[in-house]
């Protein structure tokens, strides 16, 4: 399963993002070599402010895409990223996590705020118009499909890719964390980015 994931992301990055994608020995996550500049976007933050990615320079930014109705994958990611911040101690001040909704119909800014803060008070939920969000998904190669699923009262679910995109303090997309990486590995990768 993991191998398929790796192949998929490597294929995708070759097409969309990078001149070359190599598995680096340095990082536990999937390193992008050479790292492309993280494509800039502006979205609405759950606290009502505007979130512009390029204004986060100096911090490691963790981007995760999901939706608040997601009971398994998205909250696991958020819980783990909160544990990662805890592992970083003081350095966590230089880490900004942003959760970008795949479900703007149901995820209001208020809902996103309550959701992300339940995991970590520093996490930000981001939303925007359907077009803005689609554009950001394209920039980062996120796949998301709304699907009506029989046998659940959840209404619709969203099948989606589940990477955390790690942007370094210089604004370059450096590493992708696949779902299932340990919090220790993620924290170590982030420490490296904060040091360099």
């Amino acid at each position: 399963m993991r191998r398929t994931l790796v192949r998929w992301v490597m294929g995708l990055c070759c097409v969309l993002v990078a001149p070359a994608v190599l598995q680096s020995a340095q990082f536990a996550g999937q390193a992008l070599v050479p790292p492309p500049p993280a494509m800039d976007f502006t979205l609405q933050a759950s606290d009502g402010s505007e979130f512009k990615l390029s204004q986060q320079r100096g911090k490691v930014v963790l981007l995760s895409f999901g939706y608040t109705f997601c009971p398994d994958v998205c909250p696991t990611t958020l819980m783990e990223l909160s544990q990662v911040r805890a592992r970083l101690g003081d350095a966590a001040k230089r880490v900004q996590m942003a959760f970008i909704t795949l479900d703007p119909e149901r995820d209001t800014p208020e809902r996103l705020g309550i959701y992300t803060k339940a995991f970590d008070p520093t996490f930000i939920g981001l939303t925007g118009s359907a077009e803005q969000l689609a554009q950001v998904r394209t920039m980062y190669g996120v796949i998301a499909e709304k699907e009506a699923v029989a046998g659940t009262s959840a209404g619709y679910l969203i099948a989606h890719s589940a990477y955390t995109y790690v942007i370094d303090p210089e604004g370059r997309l450096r590493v992708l964390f696949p779902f299932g990486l340990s919090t220790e590995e993620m924290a170590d990768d982030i420490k490296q980015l904060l040091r360099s």
Partner: protein
Amino acid sequence: MRFTHAVGVPIVMCGLVVIGQTSAGHIGHRHTTIQLENAWARRAPSMVQGGQSSQGRGAMTAGNGAAYVTISNHGSEADALLSASADVATTAELHATVEQDGKMVMRPLPKFDVPAGGKLEMKPGGYHIMLLGLKQDLKPGETLNVGLSFEKAGQMSVEAPVK
């Protein structure tokens, strides 16, 4: 279907998961060979103002959560988990997260098979009990009572600490 191979267990996609009674905690069959271990639930906001829903629920739809249990079958007969329940949720469903074409997809299942002498381990990114319509926040330090209804072992329950 491709995802059946990914999980290694036959997945039947049709069929509604029947919700067990809310009177979880009552063990009906004592001669069971089913053992429940490592139960836990993930922290989750109810999405309701003040963390309590009752009648005062606003425009916001209640949040969802997930609980995980490892089920071991020490008997010589296969058993199956047919449904789950938890007082804190309006509905509990048996779901599996599977990877399909680079996406994580959730599938409701009519039952979780637990083979004789085998076990079924629920975990993030795999089998889980989806808790829909949370009536209160699930906060670390709290404990949920999760009712599990088995085909042969009958009704069982387990305490699932919130992490």
